[in-house]
């Protein structure tokens, strides 16, 4: 199994750390993983995105121009990545801030009101709400591997936040909506 994912949004939305947790979770279930961020000064206030690959085999190219899943958290990213989802793939997005909704019919489209839901828990759990939504639609890692992934990727001093994050994941799982299914 190989899953190729792009997560894209504004800097500060926790895009990179969501990818990191996902990747660590892949390691926890003995997969090969790669995590490739966009980097540089354009991250400052601008967009941020990360390509995450989980695979049972050796990963060759860590850089991709099509994805099994695109998780899209602002309009710019929607404009850029909608077309890059493989036919039959998944596009998950937060409709908050999206003015032009996706139009493709050959992919599964799901939404999660992550800003809204996260605000009810803790603004900083935004990305975990999105994570939950993704895992619900596409359960590529098991919850206990996510737990272990969280533990590995958060520094010791933030381990007390794990329950909060898991609550957010559950919320995401609960609130995700499938708009279109292939």
């Amino acid at each position, binding site marked *: 199994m190989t899953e190729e994912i792009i997560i894209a949004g*504004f800097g500060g939305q926790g895009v990179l750390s969501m990818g990191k947790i996902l990747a660590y979770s892949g390691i926890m279930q003995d997969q090969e993983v790669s995590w490739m961020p966009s980097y540089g000064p354009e991250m400052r*206030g601008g967009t941020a995105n990360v390509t995450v690959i989980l695979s049972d085999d050796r990963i060759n190219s860590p850089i991709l121009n099509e994805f099994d899943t695109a998780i899209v958290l*602002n309009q710019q990213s929607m404009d850029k990545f909608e077309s890059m989802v493989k036919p039959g793939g998944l596009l998950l997005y937060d409709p908050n*801030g999206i003015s032009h909704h996706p139009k493709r019919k050959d992919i599964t489209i799901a939404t999660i009101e992550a800003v809204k839901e996260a605000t009810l828990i803790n603004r900083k759990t935004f990305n975990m709400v999105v994570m939950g939504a993704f895992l619900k639609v596409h359960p590529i890692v098991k919850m206990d591997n996510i737990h272990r992934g969280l533990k590995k990727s958060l520094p010791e001093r933030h381990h007390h936040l794990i329950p909060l994050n898991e609550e957010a994941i559950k919320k995401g799982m609960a609130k995700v909506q499938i708009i279109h299914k292939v």
Partner: protein
Amino acid sequence: MAKVRGAVVIDTEACKGCDLCVVACPTDVLKLSEQVNAKGYNPAYPANHDACTACTICALVCPDMCITVYQLKPEKAHD
């Protein structure tokens, strides 16, 4: 007493919601909006516009040159 009156125009798309003008305004004219602009920032706006004295302090500290300040002198206001 006839006061000098002022008004500001803020370029809300250029504004990055840094809050510096808000804090700097001596008459508490400005506030950050709840709405976000296209870049995802909450821009400043003159919430208490009538209090503006055209002192230009907000414009002086705005790093993004978003603020234009207008001044109407009392005599002008009466002619």
